[in-house]
């Protein structure tokens, strides 16, 4: 069912790949407790490509995601995001890179004290040289795009699970990222809502020419991917869609 992964031929917009991984390995713990979670992983994601990553829990999917998201220090191998080498990149460089990467989490991770609109604006606020009114306008635009124009002033507490995840998508996209990382965004949603949310995510990402790497267990959304990759025991395989 699985075969070793070959570099993808997918290239709708051309140019250099958004993510380019070559021989990436990662370990947790020290000395005797040291345990390898990623083994010689190689992966390319082209601009605008939607890649779904599946695999049993504990196989290293989330670790790969945090490494690409510049949230962890690279230990071994090459990891380039937007052409920037992340191995040996310092705190400041990683923080600046994160601004160009949108992230959607298992939980919605919205700020409880902010309204839906303000949460989205936290994403838009990362854009440089825009006036408050512009950023605010963009936040509203994104909420409209995810179909929440009637819920702008609600707190996360008053929104349903699907609505919260849509706010999270709007927030991630409001920073105009070129890469979107999503970790089981449908985990807390029922199947219909889950599929709707991912469809929305895919459509909006396409419009922005934004690449997507999504970790998921959800078999009902696998058909939405341009490409499926499967991870097992720290190794990546191309999977049959």
């Amino acid at each position, binding site marked *: 069912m699985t075969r070793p992964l070959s570099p993808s031929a997918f290239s709708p917009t051309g140019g250099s790949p958004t993510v380019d991984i070559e021989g990436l390995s990662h370990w947790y713990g020290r000395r005797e407790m040291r345990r390898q979670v990623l083994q010689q992983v190689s992966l390319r994601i082209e601009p605008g490509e939607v890649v779904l990553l599946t695999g049993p829990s504990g196989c290293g999917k*989330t670790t790969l*995601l*945090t490494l690409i*998201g510049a*949230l*962890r220090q690279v230990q071994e191998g090459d990891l380039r995001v937007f052409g920037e080498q992340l191995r040996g990149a310092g705190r400041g460089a990683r*923080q*600046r*890179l*994160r*601004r*160009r*990467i949108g*992230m959607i*989490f*298992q939980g919605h*991770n919205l*700020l*409880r*004290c*902010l309204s839906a609109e*303000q949460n989205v*604006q*936290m*994403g838009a*606020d*990362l854009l440089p040289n825009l*006036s*408050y*009114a512009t950023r605010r306008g963009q936040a509203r635009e994104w909420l409209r795009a995810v179909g929440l124009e009637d819920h702008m002033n609600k*707190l996360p507490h008053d929104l349903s699970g699907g609505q919260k995840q849509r706010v999270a998508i709007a*927030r*991630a996209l409001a*920073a105009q990222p070129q890469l979107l990382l999503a*970790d089981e965004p449908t985990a807390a949603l029922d199947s219909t809502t889950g599929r709707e949310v991912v469809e929305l995510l895919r459509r909006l990402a396409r419009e922005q020419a934004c690449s997507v790497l999504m970790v998921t267990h959800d078999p009902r959304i696998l058909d939405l991917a341009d490409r499926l990759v499967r991870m097992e025991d720290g190794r990546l395989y191309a999977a049959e869609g």
Partner: protein
Amino acid sequence: MGRFWWWRRIPLALLMLVRQPVRLLVALAGISFAGILMFMQLGFRDGLFDASVTVHRLFDADIVLISPRSTSSVSMAGFPRRRLVQAMALPEVEGITPVNWNLLLWRNPETRGTRSILALGFEPGDPLFTDPTLSPKAQALTQKGRVLFDERSRPEFGPVAAWFRDGRIVESEIAGKRVRVAGLISLGTSFGADGNLLTSSETYRDLLPNTPPGSIEVGLIRLQDDADPQVAVKRLSDLLPEDVTVLTKQGFIDFEQNYWKTGTSIGFIFTLGAAMGFVVGCVIVYQVLYSDVSDHLPEYATLMAMGYRLITLLGVVVREGLLLALFGYLPAYAAGQGLYLLVRNTTQLPVAMDFSRALTVFTMILIMCMASAGLAMRRLVDADPAEIF
């Protein structure tokens, strides 16, 4: 202002506080309590120090001569009166008033018990106080054995003022000599003196026959309007021998206050009380901010994952501290005003809100909140964006 609107961000710190009203109220109650405690303790302290110079403030003088052996209003030593006359040699000196100053035993005309009272002796024709209503009353002192009694003296001296107003002839004994109250003045009590009375130099010498002739305890000097008191003090110090100390009027006030500040534990006690308020406030604000940061840790981590810098998030905590300081100070200030009014009415202590104390307490609250924010920030460094996936 335009730039501000342009750069405006979501007021995260404010919203974090406001959207958790219970926690905010606890924090504000704690800060206000600490502020009120500081206002009260410092107010009492300053009020007591202020009260120690009630009489000192009233003198009509620019420069005051005292003996270097004097330590405070309760132990004034004498110096030769001719030093004051010598001071007249300076052209800028306009007038002088020699004053005798001592604590004497006053017999309560009702209970016959004795208690020490501050007696000032002066020439009834000389200006003593800036209050102009004194000089007509002072004329009554030209008769021997007459005193002016301070109606604001403590009640332990007897119902002198009430009897006098009823038209009775009030007579009592000072140091075994009979005196008659010839009028009432209004000065106020202080640390050193529970009551005050004025008398003529002549009567004073009668009451204290052991006073060496020509010896006084305080010499008041009035300068010409355009003269600089600082310069005059310098010139008088050069002119007069070592047996007198030359002070400005403010210097004389400071001399007295300094005695109570350094020579007694009053300052220490009340400052310690204020410090307790500060510490209590610190603990409360720290607790509130620390648990606030802890509760929001996943949210802070999310913001870091989105690309917000750590310094921006530290700024949120600092702003929370600043807002708490501001919001907590206002009720403390209002309550302080109210309590000062209450204290003034019940204890006659001259306690009032002054700018420097208002600023001191605000600074303390600010330090309290900033220090707590600084400590709570350490928690934020634990926020690891890699852990939230």
